[in-house]
């Protein structure tokens, strides 16, 4: 039987004109959009690999060679990998930038890339957008390091990694159940309209992420 190369699709399609695209592990990826503007912007990261990690002894684990932050809500950013501590026995790994890593074989890790929508939102007026979608205090002062919240965003349970900045502009990367993708995007775009929210590509996102690494 001749093998066909099957296409993968993201749960959503951003309403923009892609300028640069590439295919990555079967996913069509938009690297940048025409007229991205200076933010706020929204980028679709649903294609980036994500894992759920559970086990009784997370402190001793080194998934993909990195240690796991100790307290729930803490976030480690190592290269393109974001490790979010969820609770005593669980962490979320989001590989947000760079080449896809080799899929780990550790049974404690479950690939959940397909389980969620993953969006990044960034811009100086980010929190003006997010406060229209959640009562969680994403802009709480006193946080400089990125942190993770688990709670409702757009009325849907989400995992929310907040990068308050500086050095980068305020940024939010979040996931929700894939099935909510269509309506979530709709809610985000509606909330962002007054702020001029526009779609951005993976390259723009990576630039912002890099800014936050320093």
């Amino acid at each position: 039987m001749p093998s066909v190369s099957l296409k993968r699709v993201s749960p959503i399609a951003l309403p923009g004109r892609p300028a640069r695209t590439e295919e990555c592990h079967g996913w069509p990826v938009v690297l940048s959009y025409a007229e991205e503007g200076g933010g706020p912007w929204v980028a679709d990261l649903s294609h980036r690999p994500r894992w759920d990690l559970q086990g009784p002894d997370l402190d001793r684990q080194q998934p993909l060679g990195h240690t796991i932050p100790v307290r729930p809500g803490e976030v480690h950013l190592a290269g393109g990998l974001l490790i979010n501590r969820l609770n005593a026995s669980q962490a979320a790994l989001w590989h947000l930038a760079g080449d896809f890593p080799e899929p780990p074989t550790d049974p404690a890790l479950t690939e959940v890339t397909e389980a969620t929508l993953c969006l990044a939102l960034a811009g100086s007026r980010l929190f003006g957008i997010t406060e229209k979608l959640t009562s969680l205090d994403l802009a709480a002062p006193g946080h400089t390091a990125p942190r993770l919240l688990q709670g409702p965003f757009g009325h849907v349970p989400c995992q929310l990694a907040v990068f308050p900045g500086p050095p980068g502009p305020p940024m939010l990367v979040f996931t929700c159940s894939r099935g909510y993708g269509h309506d979530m995007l709709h809610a985000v775009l509606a909330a962002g309209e007054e702020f001029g929210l526009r779609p951005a590509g993976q390259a723009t996102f990576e630039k912002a992420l890099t800014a936050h690494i320093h």
Partner: protein
Amino acid sequence: MNRLKHLPTLRITPGAARSFTYGKHTFEGLQGDTVATALFANGVRVFGRSLKYHRPRGLYSLDGECSNTLMEVDGVPNVRTETTPLTAGIRVAAQNVMGRPELDLLGVLDAFSWAMPAGFYYRMFHRPARVWPLAIQQIRKAAGLGRLSPDFRMPGRFDEIYPAADVCVLGGGPAGLSAALAAAERGLRVILLEARPWLGGAFEYRAADDGDGVALHRKARDLAAAVAARPEIRVFTQAPAIGVYSDGQVTAFQRGGPDQSFDERYIEIRAAAVVVATGCGERPLLFEHNERPGVMQPACAQRLARTWGLLAGTEAVFSVGHDLGLEAAVDLFDLGLKVAAVADIREDGQDPTLVKALAQRNIPLLKGWVARKAHGGNRVTGATLTSVNGRFHRRLTCDLLAAAAGLTPATGPLTLAQSQLAFDPHTGYFLPRTLPKGLQAAGRLLGLESWAAVTASGRRAGLQAAADAGADCQAAIRESEAALRDLPGAVRGSKFVIAPGCGRKAFICFDEDTTVKNVDQAMAMGFDVPELIKRFTSAGTGPGQGGIPGHNLPLYVAQTGLSPDAHPRPTTARPPLVPTLLATYAGAQHDMSKRTPLHDLQVACGGRMERVGVWTRARRFTDDPRCRTEILNVRTNVGLLDASTLGKFLIFGPDALKALQRVYVSDMARMTPGRAKYSAMCNDDGCITDDGVVVQTAENDYYFTTSTARAGVTVEWFRYHTRYDGWCYHLVNLTDAYGVLNLAGPKAREVLSRVTTADVSNAAFPYMGYREMAIHGVPVRALRLGFVGELSYELHVPSSYMPALWDLLMEAGRLEGIRPFGLEAQNALRMEKGHLIIGSESEQRTTLHDVGLGFLWQREKADQRLVGAAALMQTERQPGRLKLVGFKMADPSGPPPRDGSPIVDARIRGYVCTARYSFTLKEPVGLALVEDGLAQEGARLAIYEDGCQGQLTHAVVTPYPFYDPEGRRLRQ
């Protein structure tokens, strides 16, 4: 009407005309006007008619405390024109008027008020009984204020925000501004809510000074500018607080406009601390005809002039009980109003400067006097004043009667926040006796009046709120308290309520036309506390809620000496403090539902989508509600169903098996690799809540499915029922990670074999088998199940590949006649096969035994403390339960009974769960829950369908599955 010009306090823009229509007239107002001030400027004095007696009503408070100026604006009823900014082109109309406001044909009702005493509804219209239904229609027509068309659609943009803050300040007067500044100086995030379009509160229009020569309006503006300069303070104007809840939650709405992204939006704030600095209003004075157009509160008259440049009359009489009332008289005189006299309830204690100012202007000040009656019809033509002992009277001519008994604090937010208020005899106010944690009060609300005291109290409250929010500022608080102590404290206030000798038409509640006499009547009937009087007389239940009556009712009731409440007790305030549009509350109204990866493809195939729980799914793909072609195609060829909504989970870890044993009724220790095990979950009542299959994929490693409805609670359910055990197991919800394609029908294998190199022969992949296979490189979990009763494969496909897989299979199956099928076809197919859907063939009280699945229960695993085990034991042989049976119709040529139809003899003995004409079997078949006495094969069921007029149809209990009872087709 000519406006006053060049006042530094004006908020209108001269020359910026805004034209609008009122009834048949076209009027012009100015930018900065409210709808009400623009109408007033055009000579409108009667704004509407009262609810019950159709009395003319005019401008009274400007703060929307009563229904007097509710009008219809652009089709929206009950718009508070006093607080609604004028925009060009709007259409304004009066409400509750037959004719026009000035000449309302129903105004005649006022003469019959004697026939409508308190609670008259309860004592009338029911004798004889046939009168009542007719009376209702008349009562309904008479009741209500505005009109709304059933086809009305609210125009405008509505939105919502959920900002967080450390300190939330309610009220943008000097107290609130000072509080905000004090907290901001401590580095805290502050939100300040102000109902009016500008800051400054009751000071921003006052020309008086504190003796230092700087006008108060100037000071107020300077303070507002200082607040605007602080980035920590977020100011919302035109944003009245509507709810104050515990834990620092405050709700408000904000009016927007063409310059904003919204017309109105809902604001829900979470703060660590809340400062209430909502100030005071003027307490209404009770006297005969105290709501005639032309009677208004002194501050109303003063603000009309100062803010909008409108003199409320030519000649005025003032009846006041507070210095601000005197100040208003002086100020308005200086602006050109003739003042015939000022009556002051107080015998003494007036601010000597104000007394002197009145004297300098030759305005007679009558100490110990009060208005007793307003004369005139559509507008005031005179006033009778009386000495407060009632002995002397004097009648004066005037077209404006500015009347208030004194001041009254705006305590609504305090009450909502559950603070205890107590009557304070010095101020005559309800003052907070205790404040809940995180709540502070400041300013005029506490009886303070001077600029210095009000701002100092604001500062103190702001610092205390900062401390509540975690800032370290005890020293500053002590300092602020000391400063406050050196300033004038709460001023003595008037407790005077009702003028002596006033007649039957002294209104305590404008909205409901409740008079003082009605209150007396209610009290005579035993309704002796304010809450009951409110219920019996409706006082305070109208559009303005407690606004007008809330202040005087408790004082009046206490004064009668007839109430067990010897001390006034405040009436209850409830959210919303300001009536709020449903459109605003609804806000952005995002609709969040789930779509499967195949949503768009199914729509493109003609799928009729429906909401099923949290998901949107395809019910069918043709116009035929019975789905004949979809069904027969599955039976004869092959169909493709999107079953992505099935719950899908991983469970692993050393105690995974124990957890499965706890919640699944079967013995999950006995699993065969490569085989799926069908089982069910019960609740502690032994009632079936879920079913699905479980697969062991490795040691301590399982993959299982749940029904769509239970997917969302499955993890919660496992954890709940093992919460005391401390077991180590891990659950991953993969429901959205995999889409599910159910490829079903006798030709399913041929289709599948065209897309995979995996061996899918019956021997290699038998019924109930589980395989992990690749389809063109895509890893797929495949289960060979048979829910619809045919050879079928349930393919669990990574969601991103689902559209590609769907296309692939549709293409691969073209020769076999593959076509999609939906939920309705599936429902009929599985019913023919006797497979049940939980919630359809079961209800809350249906046990595993009742649906015939008792065999799944492994009773030997008692040590696992299986959820539901005790109830399963106790109900196993219990008689008198509803049991699931199959049935066929006694007359197979008739139609199937409709789902839900009861099964009866002398009483109801069960009901039809699902029944369909079976295109496969060519006769109707169905499943029903019936009492066990009817559950034997051959029992005759009498079915009572709705609308049958007693014409029962009959069915006979038949063994099921109806279709392929031996299950050969599943195994072929």
